[in-house]
C-alpha cells in the first residue's frame, strides 16, 4: 500500500466508506459508478471495498479484421441495466469499408449475460442478412446459440403486422361517425326491447325477483340522498349568488327567491339529480352487468330460459324510474334551502319574506314538469347503463370502458332530452 495519499483522496475514501456503511452501494454496482470508484479504490482501499462491491465490467465489443473475416470479441457483463451503446457503434463499423464477407464471434472474455446480448445478436444477424454477410455462430456461448435457434424456429407471420396498419384521418372520422350512428341505433333497439319487457310486466308475465328490485331501490334511492343533498344545496347557493350579484344592482334582491325556486323546480333540480345519478347509478349498472357478462353469469341466465332483460334490466330501470321523481322533489327542496341561506345570510332578507316569495313563485306546473323530466332522465340513465353493461366485451378493462361509456351516453342523452323538453314546453306554453 502506498504510504502517501493526497488530501482529496483521503476525503473521498471517507465518503465511500460512509456510503458503504449507509448501504448506498448495492450489488452489482453500475458500471459508471464502478469506473468512478474503481479508480479510487485501486490506489487507496481496494482491500476493504473488494469484499463488499461486485465490480462489473461494462459490456464491450472489439473488432479485429483478417482478410475478409471480421471477428467480434465480446467482453464484460451484458445486462439489460446497461445502456446499449456498443450495439450502434458495432453496427456502423460493420458497414465501414472494407466490407467483410464473413463474421465470427469470440466470447471467451464474456461474463454474465442476459436478453440484452440476444437482442444485440438479433440486430447483428438482421444487419448481416440484409447485406449478405455470412455469419459463423460457433463462437457464441451454447446457451445463446440455443435461444437464437428457438426464436428462429417459427418463421415470422407475414400478415400479423399488416393488420395493425394505421388508418388515414378521414377513414377514422368515417368509422367514428358510423360507430356513433350505430350506437344510437342500438340504444333505440334496446329501448324497444325494454318497452316490450315492461309491457310483459304490466300483463304480469315478466319474471324478476322482488328482492332484487328492493335492493336496487334502496341503492339508487335512499343511498343516494347524501350526495344529492350536497350537490343540490350547493347548486341552490350558486344560483342564488349569481342572481344576487345582478339583482342587487336594481335593488331587486327579493327576486332571488323567484329565480331560485323557478330555476330549480323547472330544470336544475332534475338536471343535477340526473347527472349525479348518471355518474353514480348508471355507471354502477354498467359495471355490474358488464362484470356479469365477463363471468358468463348473463349467459347462465339465458341458457336457463330466464330472460336477462327481464331479470336484470327491469328491476334496475324500474327502481330508477320510481326513485328519480322522489329524488328530484327532494333536490328541489334542498336547493331552495340553499338559495334561502344566501338570501337570508348575504342579502339580509327576512326569512319569512323569502320563503313566502319562493312559495309564491313555485307553481305546480313547474314542479310537476320538473318531476316528469326527472323521471324521463331516470329511464334514459338506466337504459344507457344496462345497454353498455350488456355490450361489454370479455375482459376486465372492457368493464371500465362500459362504465365510462354509460356515463358519457347518459349525459349526452340527458342534455339532448333537456333541450327537447325546453322546445316542447315552449310550444305547449307551459
Amino acid at each position, binding site marked *: 500500500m502506498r504510504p502517501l495519499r493526497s488530501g482529496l483522496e483521503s476525503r473521498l475514501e471517507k465518503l465511500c466508506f460512509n456510503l458503504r456503511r449507509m448501504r448506498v452501494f448495492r450489488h452489482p454496482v453500475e458500471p459508471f459508478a464502478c469506473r468512478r470508484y474503481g479508480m479510487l479504490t485501486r490506489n487507496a482501499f481496494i482491500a476493504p471495498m473488494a469484499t463488499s462491491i461486485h465490480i462489473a465490467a461494462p459490456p464491450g465489443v472489439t473488432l479485429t479484421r483478417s482478410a475478409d473475416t471480421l471477428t467480434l470479441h465480446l467482453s464484460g457483463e451484458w445486462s439489460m441495466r446497461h445502456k446499449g451503446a456498443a450495439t450502434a457503434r458495432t453496427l456502423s463499423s460493420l458497414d465501414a469499408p472494407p466490407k467483410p464477407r464473413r463474421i465470427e464471434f469470440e466470447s471467451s472474455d464474456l461474463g454474465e449475460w442476459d436478453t440484452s446480448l440476444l437482442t444485440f445478436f438479433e440486430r447483428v444477424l438482421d444487419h448481416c442478412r440484409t447485406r449478405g454477410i455470412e455469419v459463423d455462430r460457433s463462437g457464441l456461448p451454447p446457451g445463446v446459440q440455443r435461444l437464437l435457434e428457438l426464436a428462429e424456429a417459427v418463421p415470422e407471420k407475414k400478415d400479423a403486422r399488416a393488420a395493425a396498419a394505421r388508418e388515414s384521418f378521414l377513414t377514422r372520422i368515417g368509422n367514428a361517425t358510423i360507430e356513433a350512428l350505430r350506437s344510437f341505433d342500438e340504444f333505440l333497439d334496446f329501448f324497444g326491447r325494454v318497452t316490450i319487457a315492461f309491457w310483459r310486466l304490466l300483463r304480469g308475465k315478466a319474471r324478476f325477483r322482488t328482492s332484487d328490485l328492493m335492493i336496487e331501490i334502496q341503492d339508487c334511492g335512499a343511498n343516494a340522498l347524501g350526495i344529492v343533498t350536497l350537490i343540490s344545496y350547493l347548486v341552490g347557493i350558486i344560483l342564488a349568488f349569481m342572481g344576487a350579484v345582478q339583482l342587487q344592482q336594481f335593488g331587486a334582491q327579493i327576486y332571488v327567491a323567484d329565480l331560485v325556486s323557478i330555476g330549480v323546480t323547472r330544470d336544475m333540480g332534475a338536471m343535477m339529480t340526473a347527472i349525479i345519478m348518471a355518474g353514480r347509478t348508471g355507471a354502477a349498472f354498467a359495471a355490474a352487468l358488464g362484470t356479469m357478462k365477463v*363471468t358468463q353469469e348473463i349467459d*347462465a341466465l339465458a*341458457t336457463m330460459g330466464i330472460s336477462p332483460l327481464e331479470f336484470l334490466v327491469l328491476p334496475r330501470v324500474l327502481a330508477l324510474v320510481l326513485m328519480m321523481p322522489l329524488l328530484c322533489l327532494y333536490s328541489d327542496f334542498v336547493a331552495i334551502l340553499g338559495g334561502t341561506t344566501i338570501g337570508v345570510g348575504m342579502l339580509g332578507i327576512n326569512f319569512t319574506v323569502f320563503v313566502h316569495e319562493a312559495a309564491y313563485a313555485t307553481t305546480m306546473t313547474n314542479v310537476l314538469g320538473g318531476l316528469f323530466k326527472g323521471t324521463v332522465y331516470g329511464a334514459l340513465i338506466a337504459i344507457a347503463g344496462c345497454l353498455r353493461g350488456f355490450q361489454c366485451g370479455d375482459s376486465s378493462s372492457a368493464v371500465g370502458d362500459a362504465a365510462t361509456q354509460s356515463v358519457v351516453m347518459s349525459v349526452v342523452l340527458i342534455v339532448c332530452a333537456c333541450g327537447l323538453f325546453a322546445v316542447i314546453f315552449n310550444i305547449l306554453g307551459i
Partner: protein
Amino acid sequence: MAESPSHPKRGTPHIEARNLTMAFGSFVLMRDLNFVVRHGDIFIIMGGSGCGKSTLLRHMIGLLEPAAGEILYDGENFTKARPEQREMMLRRFGVLYQSGALWSSMTLAENVGLPLEEFTDLSREDIREVASLKLALVGLKGFEDFYPSQISGGMQKRAGLARAMALDPEVLFFDEPSAGLDPISSRLLDDLILELRDSLGATIVVVTHELASIFTIGNNSVFLDAQSRTMIAHGDPHELLAHCDNPVVHRFLTRGEDGEKVSRPHG
C-alpha cells in the same frame, strides 16, 4: 360400456348438427359440421386452442346463432324454433360454464334454487331441500348459505354443476371442466360426470383438450381443425386413436410423442 335398461332411449340419436357453419361477420370459423350425439353419450368436442370448441358449444346452447345449418334435439329443430318453443327446450339443458358463472349476488342455495323457483311450483321449503340435495351430490353439503366469492374455484365449479343439474336436465354441457383444477379434483369431476350419465341417463357434451379426461369419459367425439376450418374426425376417441389416419388427429391424441418432432404452428 354397460347398457342400462332403465334408460330406454339410450343409444338413439339425441343431438344432431346438420351442415353447421359458424361465423363472426364475414370471418368463417368452422363450416360443414355434421355429427350425431346419441342418448347417453359422453360427447367430447376437441381440437387445438382457439379452434372454436367453446364457440361450437355456445351455438349448441343457443347463445350464438349459426351462419348456416341447424341443430336438432330429438329431431326437433332448435335453430329455427320460435322463442317460446326454444325456451321450453332450454329448460332441458344444464350448462356448466368455464368459470362456474354462479350469480355472485346470491348464495349457493339461491343459485341452485333460482331455476326451481322460476320453473316449478315447489314451495320455498321444498326448493331449499332440493337445493341442499343437489349441493350434497357435488360434495357441498353445508355450504348452502355461502356466497360464491367465499368458496374456492373448484368448489365454485362444483356448485355450478349443482345448479346445472337443478332441473334434472336431459343434456348437460361442460365448458372446459378441468380448466384451473388440480389433477385430483379434475379426476373427481370426471368420475362425477360418469356417475351423472349413468344415474340420470343424461347426454353429456364436454369441451376439453385434456387427453386424460377424453379417454376416461368420452365415448363419442368430434375433432375440430383450425387449419382446414372444419371437423376432421368424428367417433369414439379410443377408436380414433387406434384407427384414425389423419395425422393431425393422431398427433393430438398421442400428444405428438410418437413420430417425428412436433413443429410449432402459428398462434
